[in-house]
């Protein structure tokens, strides 16, 4: 009898895991809570640092999954996990020889940072909104005008104890730089300001992109966190920050405020952690067996992780983890047969 692996989540990590398992002759079932494969990447327009359309990564991956004949169950949300089964919300229990959890992350809800007025003022956006507008082909102010001044605010929902998010979400710095450049390209007359606490350019080509944004795109980087946004009489927003590098308060009005939202732990992590032995780290992400050679292993035999379920990661890292998890699953199943 052939072994069966259940993959919880059909984002890039889950799809890559399924493909790599198939390559080793192991069948898997992808259990995806939404009605489509692709996860968060479906809503993204272009990827840092190369401005590659997200569809160029997602399209071939989806096709390969389809070609490989991987069983995909959409609209199926996992409620509980165990090394030998996954219980769905519907009450159905799927038995398995191993489980790979690739359930990803949740975007930080910017309304929680009320002082920035997301959901209160029309001209406050999140990075996810910008991607959606780019996908729809129309970035414009509510009145249809082109913005003259845009402020990006880094670390919304990251490194912020006030909202219980102590961790750094890593990928938002480069996302902010990428989107600032995209806005400058769309609106060359527009002034773009990025307000940051630290700029963390961890990946290949990221630092180079940051420098290009500074030198060639004339994007202004101000080290200081915006304290609040308030509406002006003419329907714009006034923002206040400290320009910490000159030690003076700074204020300005802008047409658009873009909140660069972070990644928070997936809301399903708590339920999955009820499987004995599985646990969350203090930031809510699932804690792998160790951070080095066991980064895709849970502390429980037969339960594996891949992608942003364990920590914020970029697309490439998530896919690599999907492939690596598949390798470790194959080793585990091979040793048991």
């Amino acid at each position: 009898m052939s072994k069966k692996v259940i993959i919880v989540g059909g984002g890039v990590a889950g799809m890559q895991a399924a493909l790599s398992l198939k390559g080793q002759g192991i069948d898997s079932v992808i259990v995806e809570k939404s009605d489509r494969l692709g996860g968060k990447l479906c809503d993204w327009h272009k990827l840092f640092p190369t401005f590659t359309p997200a569809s160029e990564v997602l399209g071939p991956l989806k096709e390969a999954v389809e070609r490989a004949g991987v069983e995909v169950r959409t609209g199926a949300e996992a409620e509980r996990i165990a090394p030998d089964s996954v219980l769905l919300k519907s009450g159905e229990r799927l038995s398995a020889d191993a489980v790979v959890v690739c359930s990803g992350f949740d975007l930080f809800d910017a309304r929680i940072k009320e002082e920035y007025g997301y959901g209160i003022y029309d001209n406050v956006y999140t990075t996810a909104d910008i991607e959606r507008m780019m996908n729809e082909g129309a970035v414009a102010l509510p009145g249809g005008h082109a913005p003259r001044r845009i402020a990006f605010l880094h670390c919304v929902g990251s490194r912020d104890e006030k909202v219980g998010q102590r961790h750094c979400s890593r990928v938002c710095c480069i996302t902010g730089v990428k989107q600032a450049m995209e806005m400058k390209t769309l609106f060359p007359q527009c002034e773009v300001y990025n307000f940051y606490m630290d700029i963390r350019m961890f990946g290949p080509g990221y630092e180079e992109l940051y420098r290009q944004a500074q030198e060639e795109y004339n994007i202004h980087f101000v080290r200081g966190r915006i304290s609040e946004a308030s509406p002006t009489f003419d329907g714009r927003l006034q923002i206040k920050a400290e320009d910490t590098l000159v030690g003076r308060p700074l204020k300005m009005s802008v047409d658009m405020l873009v909140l660069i939202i972070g990644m928070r732990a997936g809301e399903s992590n708590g339920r999955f952690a009820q499987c004995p032995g599985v646990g969350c780290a203090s930031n809510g992400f699932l804690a792998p067996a160790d951070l080095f050679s066991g980064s895709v292993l849970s502390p429980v035999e037969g339960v594996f992780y891949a992608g942003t379920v364990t920590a914020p990661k970029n697309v490439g890292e998530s896919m690599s983890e999907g492939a690596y998890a598949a390798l470790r699953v194959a080793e585990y199943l091979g040793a048991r047969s």
Partner: protein
Amino acid sequence: MIQWGYTINQPRAVNLDRNDLTAARRIIRQMPELQACIACGSCTATCTAGNLTQFNFRKVHTLVRRGEYEGAYEEMNKCMLCGKCRLVCPRGINTRGVVMLIKRELGEY
């Protein structure tokens, strides 16, 4: 009129709605590399003048880029043009050239 000795403080905030950024843009156009500054402070750390006076090159050029020109020319006059800052800058900015440029552009302030 009786003077009671009270005054009103001017707001300290850098107000980017009021500041005239024309000169700042002119400076940036001539030396776009200045925008690559990551404010590491090595220029100020190695500065000969900064060791003897309050001169802080990093702070002055940042203020200039925000349209705060007042006193920038006088500050830049403290520079002895030794060029050590240029040797240490990790972003490869011609810092000595920036001093000359700001002095040239902001002489009237």
